């Protein structure tokens, strides 16, 4: 890493030219970036439900509509109806700009109204001509509000609100291959603007008039995205610039993260355009994230550089080299965790989240590349701006703030590290109720819930829903054999199912082919309500069907009458409740009351709601992968499983609290909030890693956990606090978004970053203080280890790893000069290796103390008792202060089980040592 950073610094001009070319190319590509805000983004890319949906669309037509809602207290008066008719005519005129894709308009002027009385049967539209006298108009109002096919789908129950529905002619299937066509987006905007132009002419003519439907929703969402981009990015940029400028006291330093963010954003947008990833309602925040999250790394880098620039007396290349060596590892590790944190959110079948995950991960990667590639080159050219400031400050980075944080670090050491049990208990007490509240979090995947409830779009939809019917459409398709749904038997079943579903309060309208036939039957008998039933004769059904053009009933029955489709409209937006209703439909159909039925329940709303399960699965997958990554990094860093587990546990505490907050505040788990946990771990772990990498380094230097922790906290507390506050502030900026999931994402992320700081500064040190991270291996030091390995006959022929394994299973014993280590005649099963000091081997023979041998570094002793489990055969005491490695028989057996090759070498070396000792003893005896 340091090589890349120093290379970029050295080769500043070529690097900047290359950066410029790359950026220009990416900018050129980014021109073709698509904006995609349809609910297709909330659907899984492939699913059996989607296939059902596409099959239903092929049979029964698209549910894509635009609509104009009109309300007036005097709707059924000649003047208002005349104006409404003019509106209907304008909307039906395909020659109007933007309305060429309108297939037909359904309104009180066009919908067939089957009415019968006194032997007459009327099958024309309800209001083809507007009557001039009040009585006739009142009669029409009565007909409209009592016709089950019209009430709540075309006219409100009180006859004061009506809907003009524009069926759009968009090439189907629009969601093929999961990539909605640009054409569909263009059609949406054309239709929306075309309708809006017409509505402007009618403003003030009715009590209320507005546009709803798919084009209005899509276009307004797209506009919100553009508005957000114009607002959020500058706001985030300003915040970051101020924060960095103030903390580093440098204007140049405050500009750099903005430049880095700009470059990486252009690269990301170019990448998206090249790989066909559209800008959607989630990944549009990625530029802001690049700015916010990426700035933290720049702060770490620039803070170090600024300080080292001062230390190296203005030697910029040296300062860059030292900075890259100091922060290089952390930069890589944090880049890995951040990129993986975002990439983990793409472990889902939901397209929008996949796009977000891919975009954010690549964005963070580019951001990292900008930091290690562009930033050093830029620093080379603009160094003089830095140096003047640095000289003035003379490395007094932080000042009073530093003193404050030093005191805080001391406080943590005194109050937290000294009482880890209490801290762990405290956090556990928080976590237990947290787990309960976390379990109460609801799932939601509703597009409408993405918009602020007070927004005009939501208010319009709510009004239309209250007066007419909800915007969620469900297709319940019952399948049979060709001709089945022309028979009285099957249609009576459909009617019974429909009646059962109409009893569910949340369903605003339930319409099937049975309703059409019942209505014809009723009207054929003069409007007798008792005749609202399926006739008994199949021939009567076939004859009634003659009243309908195929297009009138194509949404309800397919061409060969092998499938009947019930169109259900509901106002229920909550995904959990919606899914509950779908299960209710299934239960009713499978109860056996309506005969055995083969059926599918589908519709865009069904697909979107059913994807909530994918959100939950995605949450588990992304959290699991992030926790796994953190575990691996920490384990490798500290060569300790416990350390890895503690790091994960500490970070999961933030996640538990996050879900608890969501549960208490009723914030659902949606495509936005679902990303918080994984991203937060990814970002939160950055600070953990900064702290841990520093702790690890201090451990090696100081060889004392407490001191190392104190030093790590002293060094990292300020940058951790500054970056966390910056991150929180940046995330809080997202709360100004027009999209609720993005707002929730911003607020929750801000909260959780603060939580992560608390965890990093309190729980993590408390947990770490319970682990002995300094091993004998660390204590011995590199030089001593190498000498020992070379000199000891016990380690002969062993690799460094094998020696390490042996040493880690040993115990380090320190002895004072003159201390007895082994006494002749004692029982013992340990052998020793001299690490440091001099020892003497003596034996009392016939009352005389005879020195048998002298032992120095690398010599082994006690091997006879170890192997033979016999009494010690001599006295051994230290002549100077000494350090010994001690290993017993159980440890040797453990090595034998886990590392037979190492055990073989140990036994071979022991045999050599014993052989040599036997030869020496024999030699002495012969003398």
């Amino acid at each position, binding site marked *: 890493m340091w090589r890349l950073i120093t290379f970029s610094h050295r080769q500043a001009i070529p690097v900047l030219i290359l950066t410029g070319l790359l950026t220009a190319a990416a900018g050129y590509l980014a021109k073709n970036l698509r904006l995609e805000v349809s609910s297709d983004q909330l659907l899984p890319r492939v699913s059996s439900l989607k296939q059902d949906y596409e099959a239903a669309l*092929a049979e029964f037509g698209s549910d894509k509509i635009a609509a104009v809602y009109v309300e007036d207290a005097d709707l059924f008066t000649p003047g208002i109806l005349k104006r409404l008719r003019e509106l209907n*005519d*304008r909307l*039906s*005129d*395909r*020659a109007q700009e933007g309305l060429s894709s309108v*297939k*037909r308009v359904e309104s009180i002027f066009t919908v*067939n109204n089957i009415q*019968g009385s006194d*032997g*007459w*049967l*009327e*099958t*024309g539209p309800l209001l*083809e*001509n507007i009557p001039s006298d009040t009585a006739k108009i009142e009669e029409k109002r009565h007909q409209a509000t009592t016709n089950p096919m019209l009430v709540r789908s075309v006219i409100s129950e009180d006859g004061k609100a009506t809907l003009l529905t524009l069926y759009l*002619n968009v090439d189907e299937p629009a969601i093929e291959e999961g990539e909605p066509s640009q054409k569909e987006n263009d059609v949406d905007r054309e239709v929306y603007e075309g309708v809006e132009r017409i509505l402007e002419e009618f403003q003030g003519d009715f009590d209320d008039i507005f546009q709803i439907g798919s084009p209005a929703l899509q276009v307004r969402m797209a506009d919100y995205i553009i508005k957000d981009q114009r607002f959020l990015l500058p706001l985030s940029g300003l915040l970051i610039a101020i924060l960095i400028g103030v903390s580093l006291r440098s204007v140049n330093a405050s500009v750099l993260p903005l430049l880095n963010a700009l470059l990486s954003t252009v690269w990301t947008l170019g990448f998206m355009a090249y790989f066909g990833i559209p800008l959607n309602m989630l990944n549009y925040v990625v530029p802001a994230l690049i700015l916010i999250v990426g700035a933290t790394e720049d702060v770490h880098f620039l803070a170090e550089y600024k300080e080292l620039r001062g230390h190296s007396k203005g030697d910029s290349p040296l300062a860059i080299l030292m900075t890259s060596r100091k922060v290089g590892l952390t930069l890589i590790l944090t880049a890995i965790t951040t990129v993986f944190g975002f990439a983990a959110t793409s472990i889902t079948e939901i397209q929008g989240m996949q796009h977000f995950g891919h975009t954010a991960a690549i964005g963070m990667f580019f951001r990292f590349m900008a930091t290690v590639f562009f930033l050093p080159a830029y620093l080379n050219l603009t160094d003089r701006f830095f140096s003047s400031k640095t000289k003035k400050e003379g490395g007094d980075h932080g000042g009073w703030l530093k003193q404050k944080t030093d005191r805080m670090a001391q406080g943590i050491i005194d109050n937290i590290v000294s009482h880890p049990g209490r801290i762990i208990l405290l956090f556990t007490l928080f976590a237990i109720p947290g787990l309960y509240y976390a379990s109460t979090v609801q799932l939601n995947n509703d597009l409408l819930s993405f918009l602020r409830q007070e927004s005009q779009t939501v208010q319009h939809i709510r009004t239309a829903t209250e007066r007419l019917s909800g915007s969620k459409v469900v297709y319940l398709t019952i399948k049979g054999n060709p001709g089945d749904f*022309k028979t009285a038997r099957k249609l009576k079943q459909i009617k019974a199912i429909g009646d059962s579903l109409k009893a569910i309060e949340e369903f605003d309208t339930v319409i099937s082919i049975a309703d059409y036939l019942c209505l014809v039957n009723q009207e*054929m008998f003069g409007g007798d309500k008792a005749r609202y039933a399926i*006739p008994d*004769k*199949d*021939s*009567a059904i*076939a*004859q009634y*069907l*003659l*009243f*309908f*053009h*195929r*297009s009138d009933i*194509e949404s309800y029955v397919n*061409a*060969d009458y092998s499938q009947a489709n019930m169109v259900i409209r509901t106002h229920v937006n909550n995904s959990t409740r919606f899914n509950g209703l779908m299960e209710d439909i299934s239960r009713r159909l499978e109860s056996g009351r309506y005969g055995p039925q083969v059926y599918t329940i589908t519709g865009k709303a069904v697909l979107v709601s059913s994807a909530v399960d994918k959100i939950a699965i995605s949450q588990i997958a992304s959290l699991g992968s992030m926790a796994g990554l953190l575990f691996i990094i920490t384990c490798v860093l500290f060569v300790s499983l416990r350390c890895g587990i503690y790091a994960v546990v500490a970070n999961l505490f933030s996640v538990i609290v996050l879900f608890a907050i969501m549960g208490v505040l009723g914030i659902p788990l949606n495509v936005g909030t679902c990303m918080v946990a994984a991203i937060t771990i990814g970002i939160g772990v950055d600070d953990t890693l900064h702290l841990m990498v520093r702790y690890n380094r201090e451990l090696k230097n100081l060889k004392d956990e407490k001191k190392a922790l104190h030093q790590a906290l002293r060094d990292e507390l300020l940058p951790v606090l500054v970056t966390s506050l910056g991150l929180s502030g940046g995330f809080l900026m997202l709360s100004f978004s027009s999209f609720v999931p993005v707002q929730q994402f911003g607020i929750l992320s801000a909260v959780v970053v603060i939580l992560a700081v608390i965890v990093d500064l309190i729980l993590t040190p408390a947990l770490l203080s319970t682990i002995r991270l300094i091993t004998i291996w660390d204590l011995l030091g590199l030089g001593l280890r190498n000498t020992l390995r070379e000199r000891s006959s016990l380690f002969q022929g062993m690799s460094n790893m094998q020696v390490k394994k042996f040493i880690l299973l040993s115990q380090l014993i320190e002895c004072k000069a003159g201390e007895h280590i082994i006494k002749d005649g004692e029982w013992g099963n340990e052998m020793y290796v001299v690490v440091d000091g001099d020892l003497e081997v003596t034996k009392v023979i016939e009352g005389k103390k005879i020195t048998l041998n002298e032992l120095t570094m690398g010599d082994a002793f006690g091997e006879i008792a170890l192997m033979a489990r016999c009494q010690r055969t001599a006295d051994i005491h230290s002549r100077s202060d000494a350090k010994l490695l001690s290993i017993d028989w159980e440890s040797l057996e453990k090595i034998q089980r886990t590392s037979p090759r190492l055990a073989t070498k140990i036994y071979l070396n022991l045999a050599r040592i014993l052989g040599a000792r036997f030869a020496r003893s024999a030699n002495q005896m012969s003398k």
Partner: protein
Amino acid sequence: MKALKTPVYAALLIACCLVLTGFRKDSLTGRKIIDEYLSRHGLTSKIEKIKMVTLDSRGNVDTKEVLRLFLEDETHAQYSLLRFLNPENIRGVALLSKQREEEEYEQVLYMPALEQLRKISGSGQKGYFMGSDFAYEDLLPENPERYEYKRGLNDYLEGAECYTITAKPVDDSIGSNTGYAKRDIWISQEDYTILKIDFFTTENQLLKTLRFTQFKMVVGKEGATLASRAEMTHHLKDTTSMIAVTRGIYQKADIKHFFNEESLRNWKTEYDEQIRDILDQSN
């Protein structure tokens, strides 16, 4: 200079008029052309077996067989009877229409499954005819008393030079009973057959197009021809319906007894035999 300008303007005006009138060689008005068409091809009675095929926007096909009877009596009252023959479950469904001078258009529907007659209200004639793209009114012969005809520029249609005529209801009462604000009619200059009709909504939107093809000589009226195939395309619904005359006999005066409600209700087997016999004469 001023003196020179006046004749120039006059010449230009005349030239414009000539252009606008399509350099007509004759003084045929729209009405005269329609009258000529009716005189040549108008029939006072028809007995036809037709196949009605409907195609929806997804290409699904539905076929029905219908018996069509038409009669215009000496008082110019028009009677029409449509009786479904196939499929079996709609056999016997019949629609009787009567249009007498100064009287409102009457339609009576008979459904054998109910064994009852139902009158269909006046506005019903602009409704779709039994699940097809044809409105009831599309199946009636041209009635010059109910429309005013304006001639437009001549046009070519598939190589044939045509008169173009725009037909609009003569008054609001007729206008309210028709589904179209206007119709543009293409009539062959060669033989005065109607080749195409465009139907427009009150918003001047092209709603449907009817094309006539496969013309055959009519036995019983010299020089008269009749399209044995009519294809209606509904532009807004993207659906098509076709009527193909499989058998037909024309200018038979003795069919009036079929056009009454009683004959609908009690359609007798002998009626079928009579019609079969009549149609057999067409072979």
